[in-house]
């Protein structure tokens, strides 16, 4: 992406467009291959390793990184931090796109995507954690769509519909938070049923809580990260409130993140105590675990704190990126690296280039969609007609 992106309508030949279109082409080819040849044709999945990066990255990580939506919404509408208001729409948009991609990715991963509605309409396996995840994700996607709809409606100039949509903001936000709490934690709970496969350092009866808390961390960091990028590429699209507030946002969210991470590390350590896993820290997996917990989360916590104290925005922005990596790494460890750890290395899973290709393809789609929307809809600026609208009421 580059400055031209904003003025794409003038010249279409830009580095971003070229790379993007190449990726998309490859992606389409792989898509055809996947749906004509089955999972075996594109993935390295096996009977021992049923889940690969399409779950580990696209689902687990995707959902975690899309947590910005509910976190920001909560901050602004529930905790009444109005000064962060301009962060809401970008965050909600990112969340919406994120979840849309997650659902899209699932169509690639499951054997018979056209049956995805079955758990709701045909037969309900309510004892499954996955059922809850599915239900929550489906509902939350709808919620996000509705939360995002005002922007679209403003763009389309449908005043009435827009105002109607705004009316429900509050209840939508509350729904959103509840649903997020449930499925963010349940994604962790998915692994509760396999204590014999997940390495004890990562397996814990508290894993749902770990996932929920780390999703908040991811959400906060992603908002900072994403607003940084937006400023870099779409600053021309930003109105003065947005420009004015974005630094406050970075500082405030950074501070919040630092605090949450501290708590996260605390509960992780207490979890170790609860299962008495201390002796495992000596092993290689123990080392890896420490790298994840302190090398990523610990360091992030420290840097965020320093950044917040010294109002060092540069530091905070870099830390945000680092934290996001930390969360990604955590999800990878749980779902891939520390999973099936007892299998001999010959039976372990390593993604094929095609799996990675599809993941990249989906991410690219997300970026394209994001750019399409922010260059058209009132995301980074406020629609002139509704300037005063939300100031009075809590709606967006």
């Amino acid at each position, binding site marked *: 992406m580059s400055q031209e992106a904003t003025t794409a309508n003038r010249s279409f030949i830009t580095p971003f467009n070229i790379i993007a279109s190449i990726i998309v082409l490859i992606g389409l080819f792989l898509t055809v291959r996947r749906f004509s040849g089955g999972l075996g044709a594109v993935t390295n999945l096996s009977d021992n390793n049923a889940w690969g990066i399409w779950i580990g990255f696209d689902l687990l990580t995707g959902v975690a990184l899309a947590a910005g939506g509910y976190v920001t919404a909560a901050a602004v509408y529930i905790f009444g931090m109005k000064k962060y208001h301009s962060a809401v729409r970008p965050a909600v948009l990112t969340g919406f796109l994120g979840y849309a991609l997650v659902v899209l990715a699932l169509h690639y991963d499951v054997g018979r995507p056209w049956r995805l509605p079955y758990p709701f309409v045909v037969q309900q396996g309510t004892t499954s954690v996955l059922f809850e995840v599915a239900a929550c994700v489906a509902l939350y996607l709808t919620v996000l769509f509705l939360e995002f709809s005002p922007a679209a409606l403003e763009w389309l100039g449908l005043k009435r519909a827009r105002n109607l949509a705004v009316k429900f903001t509050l209840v939508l936000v509350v729904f959103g938070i509840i649903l997020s709490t449930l499925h963010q934690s349940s994604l962790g709970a998915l692994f509760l049923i396999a204590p014999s496969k997940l390495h004890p350092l990562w397996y814990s009866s508290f894993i749902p809580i770990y996932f929920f808390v780390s999703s908040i961390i991811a959400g906060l960091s992603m908002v900072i990260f994403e607003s940084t990028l937006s400023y870099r590429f779409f600053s021309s699209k930003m109105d003065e409130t947005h420009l004015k507030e974005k630094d406050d946002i970075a500082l405030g969210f950074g501070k919040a993140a630092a605090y949450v991470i501290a708590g996260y590390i605390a509960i992780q350590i207490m979890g170790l105590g609860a299962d008495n896993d201390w002796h495992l820290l000596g092993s290689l997996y123990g080392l890896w675990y420490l790298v994840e917990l302190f090398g990523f989360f610990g360091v992030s916590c420290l840097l965020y704190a320093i950044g917040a104290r010294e109002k060092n925005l540069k530091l905070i922005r870099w830390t945000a990126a680092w934290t996001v990596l930390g969360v990604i*790494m955590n999800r*990878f460890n749980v779902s891939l690296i520390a999973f099936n750890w007892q299998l001999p290395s010959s039976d372990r899973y390593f993604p094929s280039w095609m799996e990675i290709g599809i993941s990249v393809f989906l991410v690219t789609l997300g970026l394209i969609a994001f750019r399409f929307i922010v260059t058209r809809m009132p995301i980074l600026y406020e629609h002139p007609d509704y300037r005063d609208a939300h100031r009075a009421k809590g709606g967006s």
Partner: protein
Amino acid sequence: MFVILLICAMGALGIEALSDLSDRTKSDLARADGITIDALAVFGDLERPPVVFLHDLHTNALEEKSKDCMTCHLSENGRLSTRFKRLKDAGKQEVMDIYHANCIECHTEISAAKEKSGPVVCGECHRKKPTILSSRVPMGFDKSLHYRHSRALKKQCERCHHEYDQKSKKLFYAKYKEGTCRYCHKKESEDLISERRISMRLASHLSCIGCHRKTMAENMFAGPISCSGCHDLEQQQEIEKIDPVPRMRMKQPDFVLIKAGGKESSGARMNRVPFSHKSHEGYSDTCRGCHHKDLKSCLDCHTLSGSKEGNNVKLLQAMHELDSERSCLGCHEIKQRQERCVGCHGFISNRRKQGEPYCMKCHMAPTQERTGVLTQTGERELARMVPEIWWAIFGARQVADIPKKVVIKKLVDRYEPVEFPHRKVFRALEKKIDGDKLAAYFHLEEGTLCQGCHHHTPAAKKPPRCGFCHGKPFDEKDLFQPGLKGAYHRQCIGCHDKMGIEKPVSVDCTGCHAEKKQ
């Protein structure tokens, strides 16, 4: 994004690869001469891990320098102390110093002479993980070895055997009371510092090596003095074996009547058991195989209702306990595990109840009050006679009219009928037990041998067909009964496997079931 992805995935493999390195086998480092020097253990807990000292390594090295044991071991009235450079463990510090000073000194000297030498820094001797794998095998003094020694020493038993006199606190020799060293010399010395009732280990090393060295000094043939000479498996097997070993004579009886001993003798109800001590001597390698405490008769400790000195093991258990190698049944049961027996006996649960006929096999001599034989000699006479009487009763086994061939028509839907060479198999079994006195004695009656296969039914010329008991499988009314197919296959295959009969191969159906002709 997927930079991270790769990193993580790499991490996965990285971790895997590295964690593979954990366990390695060190079989190449197997040695028999590792001595753990924990002399300081006497003075309380050790501060550092004990040193594993490779004795032969050092003796060989000294030999090359034409030095002898005296380099490290002091001798006291002609007997070499097993301790290093000292006779007594005076005190902790003292002992420690002796080791540190001498070992390090010697090692440094040698290395000073630009020769290969031992470690001089703490950690290289005091290692947590041993650098060798002990292949030491215990050395037994079996009958053959005993005979060779007594022959070489011209039956001067006193050269090794002795008793301890409590009053004079001296060792003395008592003829005909010679027992296994282990009766007195236990696993641990009674007193570690003062040498009273020294451990079997210490005693054997002192006397064996001491004597061997002396004999060598007189340049006569002598036993080994190096660790591996006795404790290394290969070298152990090279030790000359005498077979058969002439009987050891020390006034032990040829025959005894095993009966309740002492005042309970009148309480005995079962017939007494005539026991050929003479022939059983040949079956056990040592006396203590049966006489585990001392050479007294079993009955002295194992009374009918158990006694303290017998550790409350009743006579019944002492003679019938299955999991013991000393009891009659236990030992006989072990014999049944040899390849030629296990084919049949493997199927017979060793938890079986001893039925009437089996009991009488041994309990054949009528109780005293019935015989009135009271004198020792009289009893011996009886004991010697009873088996002969018994043989006379049974005479030779009749093995006429054993069907030559049995055709099994099961599974005919898939294969040709199986033609089972019935008599051939029987003859083979007969051959197996040939010349085995134990087997011969217990398979005396006609049909006993048949019951290896025709089990759980009285021996008869025409035993019930297999199918009469073994029907369809998994009958809930008869849970423990295998079905016919299972019974056949288990019996045939099981027996063949256990007896090491290669053909036919168990997994090759057509080995027994001929392909069906179309």
